């Protein structure tokens, strides 16, 4: 589904990402791990179109997407979350989900001004979909609260729900477990697996929490200092000498 080939990203003299390749297939959870500053988020930014990569190819559903504007990539069905939660904090929880459904709605100004039946119908549908996803992530009770007032774990879940209402094929999560307590991490774990199982979404995951990564990933890519270090199933990666060296230092 997603094919990244020899992706490079250079900022001036700094080669932040060097010849990284990775694949995500349908119905698969793929993780990217690596020490801090390894270039994981840069890879994400390149894939999601926030950066224009300086080299390499990114193909999504057979279509080359490198260098396309971010909003077009997201409309293709590839949606991401952020390392630091980015919600529309002054808007309510449900409004956050409505914004995300922008392209499913009738954005014709006159239809909206006149409240045509088709406009109302779509608005209602969007509200229903929002309600469904809020229920799914356990935030239905808080639907009319300001998003900025939610607890951190709730904000994390809201961010995932906001991605899901856009009906993506590939969900890209940037450190979703950062700042969560063990119980919340476990819930997140179930949530991610169920997204894959029930909604047929592939997941590309950056995460530091090894227990989470090892448990749910189908495959893992390890990046170190911008270069790919290893890739394979969790078992293979765990036993890879290079990976152990990178994480624990050379003996």
């Amino acid at each position, binding site marked *: 589904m997603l094919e990244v080939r020899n992706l490079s990203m250079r900022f001036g003299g700094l080669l932040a990402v060097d010849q990284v390749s990775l694949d995500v297939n349908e119905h698969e959870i793929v993780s990217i791990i690596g020490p801090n500053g390894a270039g994981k988020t840069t890879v994400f930014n390149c894939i*999601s179109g*926030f950066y224009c990569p300086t080299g390499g190819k990114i193909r999504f559903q057979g279509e080359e997407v490198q260098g396309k*504007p*971010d*909003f077009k990539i*997201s*409309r293709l069905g590839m*949606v*991401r979350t*952020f390392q630091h939660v*980015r*919600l*529309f*904090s*002054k*808007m*309510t929880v*449900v*409004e956050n989900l*409505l*914004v*995300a459904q*922008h*392209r499913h*709605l*009738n*954005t014709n*100004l006159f239809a*909206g*001004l006149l409240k045509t039946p088709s406009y109302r119908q779509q608005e209602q549908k969007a*509200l229903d979909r*929002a*309600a469904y996803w*809020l229920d799914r992530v356990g935030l*239905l009770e808080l*639907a*009319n609260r300001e998003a900025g007032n939610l607890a951190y774990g709730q904000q994390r879940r809201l961010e995932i729900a*906001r*991605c899901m209402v*856009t009906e993506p094929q590939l969900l890209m999560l940037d450190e979703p477990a950062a700042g969560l307590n063990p119980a919340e991490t476990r819930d997140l774990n179930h949530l991610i697996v169920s997204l894959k199982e029930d909604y047929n979404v592939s997941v590309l995951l950056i995460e530091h929490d090894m227990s989470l990564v090892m448990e749910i990933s189908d495959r893992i890519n390890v990046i170190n200092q911008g270069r790919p270090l290893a890739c394979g199933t969790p078992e293979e990666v765990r036993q890879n000498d290079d990976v152990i060296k990178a994480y624990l230092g050379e003996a």
Partner: protein
Amino acid sequence: MAAQNFKHALFCAIVTLVISYPILGLNLVAQGTQVVLEGADTATLISIVLAAVAVFLFQLFRDHIMGSVGKMPNLNPFANREPMEQSKRQRLDTIVLTLLVIGALIWPFLVSRGSVDLATLVLIYVMLALGLNVVVGLAGLLDLGYVAFYAVGAYTFALLYQYFNISFWLALPIGACLAATFGFLLGFPVLRLRGDYLAIVTLGFGEIIRILLNNMTWLTGGPNGIGGIPDPTLFGMEFGRRVKEEGNTLFHEVFNISYSGNHKIIVLYLITLVLALFTALVIRRFTKMPVGRSWEALREDEIAARSLGLNRTSVKLSAFTIGAFFAGFAGTVFASKQGFISPESFVFLESAIILAIVVLGGMGSQIGVILAAVAVIILPELAREFSEYRMLLFGLAMVLMMIWRPQGLMPMRRIHIELKKQE
């Protein structure tokens, strides 16, 4: 600490003396062919010394004074009030708005001709401020050249009338659409910029339009302006003593009442009121639509909005275009009300005043903006005796506002879309 304060205060007082004495205390007087330096009279000298003493005292007790100024927000009875529930608030909003509209409808029949004229001007500024509110308050784009679109609307009507004899009602949509087109064209290259850069470019654009109008003498008459712009007609009825245009009728003849100059002014006021209401309602509706939500989303967090598939350029462009549209609207009404326009009416100060209204009213809040428009336009009229100190008072009011209510008169309380409980 005290010694340091004293030293600082003394220094400030001396600076005051050094600056104000040569400016106020010394006069150049022409005596025949020579220019002689003369000292000012004693009163001026005394006031200079008094000013220096005031500065000295203020600086000496500055900490106390600023401390008590800092406590001033507590004096505001509404500062820490619990926010009202949304349903309650909306009902209150509706009641207040209805009362306002009813009051505005009765108003012209109770007061003098001058007051109605002033009220028309206020309504024009309400329209402008509501339009700018979309750009600045909702979409978060600082536009310092808003007056350019106002000018486009006004000149569109003036020129269309002059060259093609087109009436007010036809010119109204044309002027608004042309202003919107200008907004669109300007927005296209400019909206990639952010914050300060955007402000500077829009400022430049405002000046470009004004200077163009000033210099394209063959078309616009340059600094001489365009006169003789007609008043609006009402269903083909004119309000003058005699019919100016072939085929029109006269208002007082149709209704068989005696001619009065007031009719024209009252009708113009009512037309403006209807247009201002239209502006307010349309923009209010926009805020609840996907387009309004995307403006706010982009203002809240641009990166997140982009990651969800919102096209940054088109969202900003829509805000800019819609804002310009209503400025064009107001411009057409303004041209018709004044009967004469020249580039003088569209200087940067106008942009600044409109922006001040928006900020004063509370960014994004409609009622706040309306109240602020009333205050900003009417207060200077009331304080006519102090006309020299007008700008000073204006500045003082702004400073006090920033201390007291930095969020504006009536800060925006968003109308949330509520998710109803499902069974």
